[in-house]
């Protein structure tokens, strides 16, 4: 146990944490005042939720994912983090589904805007994957890097602690390798865990991470452990490239991949292609894809008043370009058809996002494929549009 000695661990240092001692990491975060969030099983899926004990982590549980399919299975060989991504992402905490952006109180004939409420405790998320770190960087550009800053997002983001995890398994819906967003955790984390057989190799990624671990007595990783921790996600990446390039029958299930060559012009140059109508015949316009997408940021502000009508809250709630009222004008909705709404979503995500934010809006997490009730797969739709326009 910690002997009270304070160590200054440099960023880039590696510590070796035996699996039975993982709770110590959680305890350190909680003692430091963080609200700790991590993966837990709930309603048949692995979601992000409050994490008080590592016993709540989905040890020995795997998620089988495919278009419109998500199943949990047990595997005694599976570790704490051998599942991949579930329906939640960091977005649920940094850009929550419902948030008050302004409160007002009626005073006489007028209204008095109230100062913002004090921020909640800082959040620490354990188990964040490479794709979600990229998604976070994408949302940062939306909420922090324009002429205006979203104050709620900024407050949570600045105090966020990220204990990332290097994936050592991919689902059939994963295509981070083709988006160059994973599976290795790149940077932008405070700590990164790589799950080895009996221990975690833990890399320090920031001063915040270093400070948190200043009093631990965890030994440094051996050179072999560091090598193994580095090699593990690289091997997975090579395997994803190999298997997604292989023919259909070679090594099922074949992971997805998205050819992003010239994708902006492919999509924005074919806005009137009949393929949009073909997708629309399957799409239910249910908005699931936008809700599970870790970068989708559309929202609406709702007015909520108490019974006296003298206290009003302006609440920002998640919205979706698949909702008819999203494009509503006094003359009617701009995007009346499902074809128009699917086209809006896909062209924004993969094409106009690049104009707006200098990056794709897709990080290859595959959530939109898994959680689409009819299994529409954006990688297939882009490939189909590419084939249809090339011949």
């Amino acid at each position, binding site marked *: 146990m910690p002997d009270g000695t304070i160590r200054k661990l440099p960023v880039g240092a590696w510590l070796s944490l035996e699996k039975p001692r993982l709770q110590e990491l959680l305890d350190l975060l909680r003692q430091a005042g963080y609200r700790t969030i991590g993966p837990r099983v709930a309603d048949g899926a692995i979601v992000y939720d409050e994490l008080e004990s590592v016993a709540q982590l989905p040890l020995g549980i795997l998620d089988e994912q495919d278009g419109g399919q998500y199943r949990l299975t047990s595997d005694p060989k599976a570790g704490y983090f051998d599942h991949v991504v579930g329906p939640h992402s960091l977005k649920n905490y940094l850009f929550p589904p419902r948030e008050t*952006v*302004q409160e*007002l109180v*009626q005073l006489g*004939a*007028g*209204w008095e*805007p109230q100062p*913002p409420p004090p921020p909640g405790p800082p959040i620490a998320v354990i188990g964040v994957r490479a794709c979600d770190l990229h998604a976070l960087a994408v949302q940062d550009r*939306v*909420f922090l890097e*324009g*002429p*205006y*800053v*979203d*104050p709620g997002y*900024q407050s949570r983001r600045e105090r966020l602690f990220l204990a990332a995890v290097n994936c050592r398994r991919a689902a059939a819906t994963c295509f981070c390798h083709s988006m160059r967003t994973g599976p290795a955790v790149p940077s932008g984390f405070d700590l990164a865990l790589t799950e080895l057989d009996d221990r975690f190799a833990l890399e320090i990624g920031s001063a915040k991470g270093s400070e948190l671990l200043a009093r631990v007595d965890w030994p440094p990783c051996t050179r072999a452990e560091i090598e193994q921790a580095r090699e593990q996600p690289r091997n997975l990446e090579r395997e994803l490239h190999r298997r997604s390039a292989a023919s259909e029958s070679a090594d099922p299930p074949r992971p997805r991949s998205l050819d992003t060559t010239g994708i902006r012009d492919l999509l*924005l140059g074919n*806005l*009137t292609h009949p393929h949009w109508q073909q997708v629309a015949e399957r799409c239910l316009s249910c908005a699931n894809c936008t809700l599970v997408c870790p970068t989708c*940021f*559309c*929202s*609406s*502000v709702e*007015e909520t*008043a108490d019974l006296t*009508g003298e206290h*009003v809250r*302006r609440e*920002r709630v998640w*919205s979706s*370009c698949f909702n008819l009222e*999203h*494009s*509503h*004008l*006094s003359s009617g909705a*701009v*995007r*009346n*058809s499902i*074809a*128009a709404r699917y*086209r*809006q979503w896909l*062209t*924004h995500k993969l094409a*106009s996002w690049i*104009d*707006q934010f200098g990056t794709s809006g897709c990080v290859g997490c595959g959530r939109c494929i898994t959680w689409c009730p009819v299994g529409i797969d954006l990688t297939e739709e882009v490939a189909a549009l590419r084939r249809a326009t090339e011949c």
Partner: protein
Amino acid sequence: MLTVPPAAPTVDRLNPWGVHAARILQVHAEIPDVVTYELEFHDPAVRARYRFQPGQFNMLYLPGIGEAAISLSSDPGRPERLWHTVRAVGNVTRALARRTAGDQVLVRGPFGSSWPLEKCRGHDLVIAAGGLGLAPLRPVLYHLAGHRSEYGSVTLLYGARRPRALLYTSEYDVWRAAGIDVLTTVDLGDDAWQGNIGVVPAMVERLPLEPARTWVFTCGPEIMMRFVIFAVLARRVSPRDVYLSLERNMNCAVGFCGHCQLGPAFICKHGPVFSYEQMRPYLDIEDF
């Protein structure tokens, strides 16, 4: 390339949700269902800091009801009093229609891009407006009237469905006296109407102009703007010198909410005023 104007001095860069209280000084009836509100900020410091460019808009907010994006239609040289011409057509604007002088309205703004009055200095200007589309162009007319010698010929082509739907009729002679040609047209006349009948694009076709030195600003129904643009391009005006103001559902006004997108643009953030060259690929796509 789309550009984003910098944050306004009256909007907190770090909290763009913040509102300022304003009082309705006057409500001026314009045409049926359309009134102009004259607003003044309560706080003298906000009043002193507030500046806007022609073409920009404010978010007008009624607590418990909601916000509406409304363009500024007053003189940018007199930013201490703000005019907003509003048609009572939605939830917020209908509630606004029940407000009278002395009532409070909360305001965020100004937001958005503006008509390029600096860049087109020294050139001829054709301003083509339809219906309520004259409101975001009225600040341009005030500016031009006050800086007339800095520009070449200036023509306002303005159309409405009916004579009684023409906005700001009492000001046309003031603008004419300042050296602006004001030509009006209606789709359908009445017993008293002696002027033009027809659509604005048809007036563009007949207008004498020198394409190389002409800039065009247009605002109105999209179908009208589209045909105005076809007409001026057919007259060989450069698409770089044609500007339009677009309307989409604006909810947050700062590019956070996604509602007002058109292709690569957030209308609230990169617009509402764009050059035709910027938006050309996306304007003719149905339901986009």
